[in-house]
């Protein structure tokens, strides 16, 4: 199985916004200026000043939190890498939004049949082995598409060759247990406007470590309660018999 991904190199990005337009066109959205991620914007190039820019879009985690938390399995991590959402299953509980460490899923707050909206890493293109819209349009090669392992190797090569250009590490290599999208940043994640406190382990195991114990806890608790039911009821029976005997002793 080959996981595809994207590598975004902040030092190469000139903030032209071509990827925003390509993304909107690819997803049949009205062309519009993007100032934050929302239900109509899957991709946002943030201007950090001093000609430094950050791209915001779904990291397409290797072990996605949204996939794990969705009660109706509306999210899927596809074999190719993209994490996608199924409109026919979703009931709109918004647990994915609460749980996502990158705060990616967005909600149609003003729709009577609201959808969860987020970057789908151009699943329809990737499944034909075509690069995503953002990667194919990028004029400087700041965003490149490829197999995640190749991109990771390339990222480390750039880090090793020009350590002074970058803020130390590959964002997304370990975040939330690793993501299909990798970022090389010239500023650290917080200064780049990205979530800096994402745990370096996959999040789904946190709740699974609780849930997986239920099949052990519930029978034990049930046996205890059932036993107490029997035990205390028997005490009453014995008391009744003794009371009965006492009455008859008086006779």
């Amino acid at each position, binding site marked *: 199985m080959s996981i595809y991904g994207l590598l975004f190199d902040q030092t190469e990005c000139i903030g032209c916004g071509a990827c925003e337009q390509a993304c909107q066109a690819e997803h049949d959205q009205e062309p519009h200026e993007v100032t934050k991620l929302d239900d109509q914007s899957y991709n946002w190039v943030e201007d950090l000043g001093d000609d430094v820019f950050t791209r915001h879009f779904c990291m397409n985690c290797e072990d996605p939190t949204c996939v794990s938390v969705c009660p109706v399995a509306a999210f899927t991590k596809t074999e190719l890498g993209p994490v996608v959402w199924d409109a026919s299953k979703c009931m709109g509980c918004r647990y994915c939004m609460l749980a996502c460490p990158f705060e990616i899923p967005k909600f149609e707050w003003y729709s009577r049949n609201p959808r969860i909206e987020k970057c789908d890493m151009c699943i329809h293109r990737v499944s034909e082995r075509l690069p995503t819209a953002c990667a194919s349009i990028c004029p400087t090669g700041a965003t490149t598409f490829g197999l995640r392992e190749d991109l990771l190797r390339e990222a480390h090569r750039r880090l090793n060759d020009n350590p002074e250009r970058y803020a130390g590490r590959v964002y997304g290599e370990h975040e939330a247990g690793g993501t299909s999208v990798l970022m090389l940043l010239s500023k650290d994640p917080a200064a780049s406007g990205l979530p800096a406190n994402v745990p370096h382990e996959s999040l789904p195991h946190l709740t699974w470590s609780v849930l997986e114990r*239920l099949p052990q806890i519930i029978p034990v608790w049930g046996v205890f309660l059932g036993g107490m039911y029997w035990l205390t009821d028997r005490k009453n029976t014995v008391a009744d018999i003794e009371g009965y005997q006492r009455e008859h002793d008086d006779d």
Partner: protein
Amino acid sequence: MTKFTIPRITFWRCITVLLAVLVAGIVVRRFTFGLGSISNLHDGMPWGLWIGFDLLCGVALAAGGFTITAIVFVFHLEKYKVLVRPTILTAFLGYLIVIGALLVDLGRPWNIWHPIVFWNPHSVMFEVGWCVMLYTTVLFMEFLPFVLERFGIHKPLRLWHRYLTPVLVLAGVLLSTMHQSSLGTLYVIAPQKLHPFWYSQALPILFFVSAIPLGLAMVSVESYLSLRAFGKRLHPEILRDVGKATAVMLMFYLTIRIEDIIVRGEFGNIFAFDAASWFFLAEFVIGGLVPMFLLFRRDIRENSLALMGTQTLVVLGMIFNRMNVTVTGFQLGTGASYIPSWMEFVLSIGMVCIGMILFSFAVRNLPVFEEGPLEDPRPTDPIAEMTR
């Protein structure tokens, strides 16, 4: 006795009708223009007042249902039997309110049944969904005998009580264990978003254990409300014992809570006296330690009014805790801004009112209290009644 009674028209009932119209309008608006048109929820704050109050507090306040049924039917402490029916009724109504709130809060409520067919056992919300469905069914079946009795169907009831009630009670306690705890587990997935005073791997344990004193305290508060509404005194000696049990269970919970804070190295930060610290102290001291110490005092327990006041403080403390997890702690953790809109408040208040009206209707027409359906309220001064 066999005739249904129609509620009289009073000032408060008019207010209630007004509220109902308002709620209906808000619901129509929500299903026409979307959630954003009635709430201040946004992408950074996907859950707010409804999840915090209607859902988490609603479920927590229904905890009396499983606590009292367990005490009476599992542990056979028969003298508390008079409390069973009012608490089952409250729990049942509580869960109906939870479902009502969910139908508004869910983006696509017509898909609310999807967890039945689209399984994801890795999701805490999947567990929550199933618990809501199954426990509401159990509560309905625990409630059904009231109705059967009311219509004089006694024959199946004997079999029902003999064979079905123990099974229902056991299922109810197990499902409540899972449901109370799973509402805490929901937040275990977001360690970096919830303030460390409220985030803990032990949230499921904290939520379950805290539900017990809360359920017990609710029994007292309910009986106070019954007193206000029906001039009815509910066995002061039993409520005194419930107060004792509340004190012990509250102590148990507060010990776990503070141990959890210490283990995670947050104890020193409690005294930082910043916003988070004040919220925690208010929850822990005013809503926890103070009522616990008061409930340990005999003179407090023997004064009905003081007992009710203290138990109300326990309830408020727990509500504050749940709100801190869902709203305050989340905001402190993520920096998201959120103040519920007035429509969110009206909807929440409306839900509570619907619950109270249904409760009042049920006790008038169904054998909820041991005397059977209650007549119209006696005009008494409840405060005087209490301190008598």
